[in-house]
């Protein structure tokens, strides 16, 4: 059979075509009716989906909000303002870690101390003449991250503030150096008499604020607590500030109120000028 035969055959095959009973008016009316019905069905479907979603979500939210209460059994108030569904990838990028040496960074760190940290302490009421030496050193951060790279700097400085002798511990961690992740910090560090809050800032970074009231001294009833703020920055670096009173072994003479407030510590930790050199 040639192509022309097929062509002719197909033309002939429709010779007994039954008469076409196509009424455009009734067809258009039916089409319009079907379109309306389809729209109505879609509206009902969307409304049903919304109702189901609402019914499913409200109890879940209620349960979630109830779970954020105080864990009285363990005496721990471990509240977190970070929604559990919001993940904060940590570290936020794959930038390689960088080895630092104190000798190389010393001029930068000295400048940071003179121009930023020491003036900030003075603004918060520290007696300028009492501010001691800040000699930070590179140390492993104490968590599980690889400690073969030297990029976590710890430093402590003592001074006399409005509430008496005090100690400020600074932590400067390079990009990708710090663990735990901000949403795990509270869970890992929480202990009895600890308050811990993780908060996302408008710029996308996170601040973890923790206060440890400390055990009471059996002899005199003093609390030996501390307060810390860690700023998890968007570039993957971390700056931590921790404040405690400096009793210097003379417990009876000390004032054990924690010297710096959360706001003061947050101001220090979120100061972008305080960071490891890049």
């Amino acid at each position: 059979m040639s192509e022309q035969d097929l062509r002719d055959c197909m033309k002939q095959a429709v010779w007994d075509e039954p008469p076409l009973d196509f009424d455009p008016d009734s067809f258009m009316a039916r089409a319009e009716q079907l379109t309306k019905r389809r729209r109505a069905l879609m509206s009902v479907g969307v409304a049903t989906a919304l109702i189901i979603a609402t019914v499913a979500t409200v109890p879940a939210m209620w349960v979630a909000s109830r779970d954020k209460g105080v864990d009285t059994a363990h005496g721990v108030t471990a509240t977190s303002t970070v929604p559990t569904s919001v993940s904060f990838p940590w570290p936020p990028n794959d930038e390689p870690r960088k080895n630092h040496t104190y000798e190389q960074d010393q001029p930068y760190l000295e400048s940071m101390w003179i121009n930023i940290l020491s003036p900030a302490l003075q603004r918060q009421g520290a007696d300028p003449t009492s501010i001691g030496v800040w000699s930070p050193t590179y140390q492993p951060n104490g968590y599980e991250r690889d400690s073969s790279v030297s990029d976590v700097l710890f430093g402590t400085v003592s001074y006399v503030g409005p509430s008496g002798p005090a100690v400020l511990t600074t932590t400067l961690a390079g990009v990708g150096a710090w663990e735990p992740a901000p949403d795990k910090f509270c869970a890992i560090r929480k202990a009895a008499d600890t308050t811990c809050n993780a908060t996302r800032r408008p710029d996308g970074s996170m601040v973890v604020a923790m206060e440890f009231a400390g055990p009471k001294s059996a002899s005199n009833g003093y609390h030996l607590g501390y307060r810390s703020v860690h700023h998890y920055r968007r570039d993957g670096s971390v700056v931590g500030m921790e404040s405690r009173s400096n009793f210097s072994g003379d417990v009876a003479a000390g004032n054990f109120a924690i010297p710096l407030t959360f706001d003061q510590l947050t101001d220090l930790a979120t100061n972008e000028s305080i960071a490891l050199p890049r």
Partner: protein
Amino acid sequence: MRKADEQGFREFAVTHAASLRRTAYLFCGDWHTAEDLMQQSLMKLYQAWHRVQQQDHAGAYARKILLRTWLDEKRRPWRRAEQRDGELPETADSNADPDLVSGRLWARELIQKALIKVPPRQRAVLVLRYFEDLSVTDVAAVMGCTEGTVKSQTARGLVALRVAVDALENNGSAMETEVAS
């Protein structure tokens, strides 16, 4: 739908309904199914008319809808068996030219028994190319495939049709021999 669109669609439907039904008949080999396919396709076209009108190729779009509607229909389990029974016997028309009648009957046999054995997409290509007289490019647009695929499907479709026609002819001559003996 706006009045102007409605008028445009009405004109299109009136002028194209018959040709769409014929094409559908060649796809499925049954006038009743062809009527259903034509109605369903026009209904789908009605819902998309505002878009189709802007693109100014309503005819090609209608063919595409028809083809997809038919292929979808074929996939439905209750449509898989292409069997028809209860056909009315042919009645002799004393005024008709015997050669013409014989040719038409052969053509209908071809559609209902041989073309129906060709795989659906190859059958569609044959109908679009040899009944609708579309170019390879236009068939590719309707089928949503490349021109190379259209050519290969055409070649395979022709081979399959020739095999089916040979089987039909052999069957016919065997039956004639049986009747003669």
